């Protein structure tokens, strides 16, 4: 349909974007990145900002690089550009796997990593993977730059630790070059969003799991770590039996009353899917671990 009227500003630098945010702090203001969540919401009347500040063209916010043991992803890097970067697959296998399942080719060509994480749609594919990857969100605002650990980042439906005057400038992911990762998703047949999506990142030493991070999206109103699964995995091997045992505790610590429930899946069924897709994510992780171990 037709969005309501809005003012449009194009920022060419991070500083300009921050200035524009400050200037329009009295109005309802949205940052426009790839626009693949915001524009449909505006067209359907769910969102009606007075001011749009387009940050998609800020050159400094594009690109994937490696800085020591950290993978640095510019906030305006498109999903496709991330997938084209070998470093992303090497250092952040779970995250790259999740990015590869966002939307379709056209969405991936336009949508951005930073836009996704700032929007914080609980059914998107990135919250679980960002949690599993122990990412750090780097944001900049009038008071300068700050780093937000991912575990402190997601608050609720479209709600994050970002302040209104801030924008995400980059995402930093500690290298997991020695780990195996995967993402398993049950997509909604209509929207393609995750009914559940599980990202797993597992490190092994001589067949024994030394560390595991497992994150889920589509389950609660924000991305969540499946800590019971992580604990069940550590110290065991990534074989069929331990995968089943770990997946069996996928819903531990998750209040079913808080689970998402909609036309496509009730909370009760989501709990079933959560267990089944945790199993699938861990199996895929185990399969990915094998070739990595052989490297």
């Amino acid at each position: 349909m037709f969005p309501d009227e809005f003012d449009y500003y194009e920022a060419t630098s991070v500083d300009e974007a921050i200035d524009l945010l400050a200037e329009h702090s009295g109005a309802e203001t949205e940052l426009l990145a790839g626009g693949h969540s915001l524009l449909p919401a505006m067209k359907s009347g769910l969102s009606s900002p007075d001011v749009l500040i387009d940050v998609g063209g800020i050159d400094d916010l594009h690109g994937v690089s490696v800085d020591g043991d950290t993978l640095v992803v510019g906030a305006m890097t498109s999903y496709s550009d991330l997938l084209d970067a070998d470093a992303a697959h090497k250092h952040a296998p779970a995250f790259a796997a999740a990015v590869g399942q966002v939307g379709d080719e056209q969405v991936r060509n336009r949508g951005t990593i930073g836009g996704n994480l700032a929007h914080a749609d609980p059914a998107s594919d990135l919250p679980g993977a960002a949690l599993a990857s122990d990412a750090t969100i780097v944001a900049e605002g009038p008071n300068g730059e700050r780093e937000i650990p991912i575990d402190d980042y997601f608050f609720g439906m479209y709600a994050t630790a970002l302040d209104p005057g801030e924008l995400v400038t980059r995402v930093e992911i500690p290298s997991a070059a020695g780990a195996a990762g995967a993402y398993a998703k049950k997509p909604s047949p209509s929207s393609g969003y995750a009914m559940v999506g599980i990202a797993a990142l597992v490190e092994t030493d001589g067949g024994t799991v030394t560390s595991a991070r497992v994150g889920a999206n589509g389950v609660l109103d924000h991305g969540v770590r499946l800590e019971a699964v992580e604990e069940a995995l550590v110290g065991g091997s990534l074989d069929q039996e331990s995968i089943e045992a770990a997946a069996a505790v996928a819903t531990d610590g998750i209040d079913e009353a808080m689970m998402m429930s909609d036309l496509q899946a009730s909370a009760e069924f989501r709990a079933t899917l959560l267990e089944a897709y945790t199993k699938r994510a861990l199996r895929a992780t185990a399969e990915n671990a094998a070739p990595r171990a052989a490297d």
Partner: protein
Amino acid sequence: MTIESVDPDDVTAADILGSAIERREDPALITGDAEYTDDIQLADMAHMSVVRSQYGHARIEDVDTSEAEAMDGVVGVYTHDDLAREDTPGEAPFNLPVGWLLPSLNDVDHPILADGKVRYQGDAIAIVVAEQRYQAADAAGAVDVSYERLDAVTDPDEALSGDARQLHADADDNVAFDWEIGDAEKTAAAFEDASHTASIELTNQLVIPNAMEPRAAVADYHPGTDELEVFMTSQNPHLHRLLMSGVIGHPEHKLRVKAPEVGGGFGSKIHHYADETLVAWCSKLLDRPVKWTATRSETYQTDALGRGHETEAEIAMDDDGDVIGLRVDTRANLGAYLSTFAPAVPTYLYGTLLSGQYDIPAIHGHVTGAFTNVPPVDAYRGAGRPEASFVVERLMNRAAHEMGMDPAEFRRRNFVPDEAFPYETQVAVVYDSGEYEKPMDEALDLLDYEDFRDRQKEAREEGRYLGVGFSCYIEACGLAPSELAGQLGAQAGLWESSLVRFHPSGTVTAFCGTSGHGQGHATTYAQIVANELGVDYDDVEIVEGDTDEIPHGMGTYGSRSAAVGGSSLVKSARKVVDKAREIAAHSLEADPDDVEFENGEFRIVGAPDRSIGIQSVAEQAYLAHDMPDDMEPGLEATSFYDPDNFVFPFGTHAAIVEVDPETGEIEFEKYVAVDDVGNQINPKIVEGQIHGGVAQGVGQALYEGAEYDDNGTLLTGSMQDYAVPKAEHVPEMDTASTVTPSPHNPLGVKGVGEAGTIAAPQAIVNAVTDALEPFGVDHIEMPMTPERVWRAVDASATADGGHDPEDGTADGGDR
């Protein structure tokens, strides 16, 4: 098994009928050169937007248009009161007519703008015309409607219960009609004599058509001549002209309805809606062109829905497993008003197909139509026939299980035998031709059925659940003849008209009253005409969809175009050849009886060197320098073709699926479609129709369903929420054909546009219940979402005291 496309340059006129040549319309459609209604831009064109009810059921207390009228660019805002004003075009009542009357029908008023009451979310209340489309949309949002909310009802059984709020003053208890077919007493006797019976209760859910192109119209009134041109997304321009002429009171002969390229319809563009009529009314009121294009949200809220049945059905067998009786009781959801063909769909297009492919000596069907607070429900790809086939094929599965017989063999023993055709069913139709075992045999072969049952057994031992489902469907296409349709209540004839015209240069334009919207008529009709006239395919152009250019027409729906439109073209082409033969004989100085016609050449029998080509004859006919005595110049002919009967395509579809009982997920292993659509004009197009039809059937089986809350608010109002199947959701298909020509039309064709959609759902449901047989699951409602499948497994396991599927002792619930 995909059919290879053929370049038309490699095929002669004699061989072109039945050749899989490429669709000539595709390059323009694919590159964007095709012109759709919304592409039309006229000078000084204004834009219309519609103010729609937010609620499923409400009284309108007030419509305040003052703020909207004051907005930039707004030309006018109009409500029902403005329609009725003396200084505006037309005369009250401005009701949309229904095109099919049943004796018991409550023909309720259907105003084009709400007259004090709205009955579904999306019902039109007011219209805004503005200079620009955005202005019109903004101003429509500023129209302030005060509602008094009323209780809504969306379920037909609840609507009919006597406890629901009545929608229309003159439809007591929301009954739209009460209709029956077959012999109730004879059927009751059959059930008394039966040694076995089986029954089923099922819902055939409401689905939203989702044509790729939304509905749209551009109207252009010419005050100097009082001519009103309407370009619109129409499957049947002549019918829309007639109906619109009546609604807005504009003479039919001064109204031109033209369908530019139309991007799909699936039935949703057959019906006559308020919106297109209002565009025409506005153009006449304002003396300027006006355009309206539905948004996708409006498409979801206002396009006529399909299906919507609640059914109980039973089947009776004798000791040997022969079906001896079948009875069905259905409550059909008709929505808030009667759409154009709505009364025919759950009655004559449904009840008449309840015999399926089977020789059943006693059948009774009873259907009650219900008014509810959802959009009007009407024909959607298949229209009544998918609902019938779904009931029959689900029952046949239950019955086979009851008899302890293989579902394929049980069907086979009950098929109408080849020698029984033409076969008169117990539900008022005569099947023209059929060889029902052939597609079944081919399907079993493609499935490797014997091997499958072994694999199924082994898989179950490993905890994997495979299932096979059959659908031996029958459909009736090309509704006919007109006399019968009239007796049954149709307010229109069911013939088709065409004009075949040679030009002096020898090229040909053929006009046909059908109106293609994706079917490939430009290709297939040209194949027919080129073949009849013996001219190059490239020398034939097809024109459809314009009431000023085409003699008359009934449009494209119900898989009628090949059987009725195609036959009409044959008839016209043969008249042209007859006239050309006389001219040729005159020129060859021979008796016309001694002149034969082959491959475009007239020859004297026995003197083959004396000949003249039909294209030269055409030139002579227009020069008219030397014509036979009393013969008019020119070479063209018009026909009206009224078929003797329906055509009855049939086939067997079968699906093999694997179901994961843990997550309820369904994977296709194989989908086999063996269809007998009679002779094929273009096998590539036949294959494409089957692919598309099956995709739509897969949609209904697994993904699609219009959901409303108790207030009649649509919950699945966008593609984010309503799952139209995508490529990844559609199985690879093994397609094959058998050919049993129709004996009563000159092409021997039947119809293929709806076959896949009719056949697929029950094949898939039967496959899923077969897979879950060890769990005692014998029915799952569509769409079979993972959650529904998972719950069915869970519920059956609980009902049976948590039985173990591996012990193989599951009993079949209410089978």
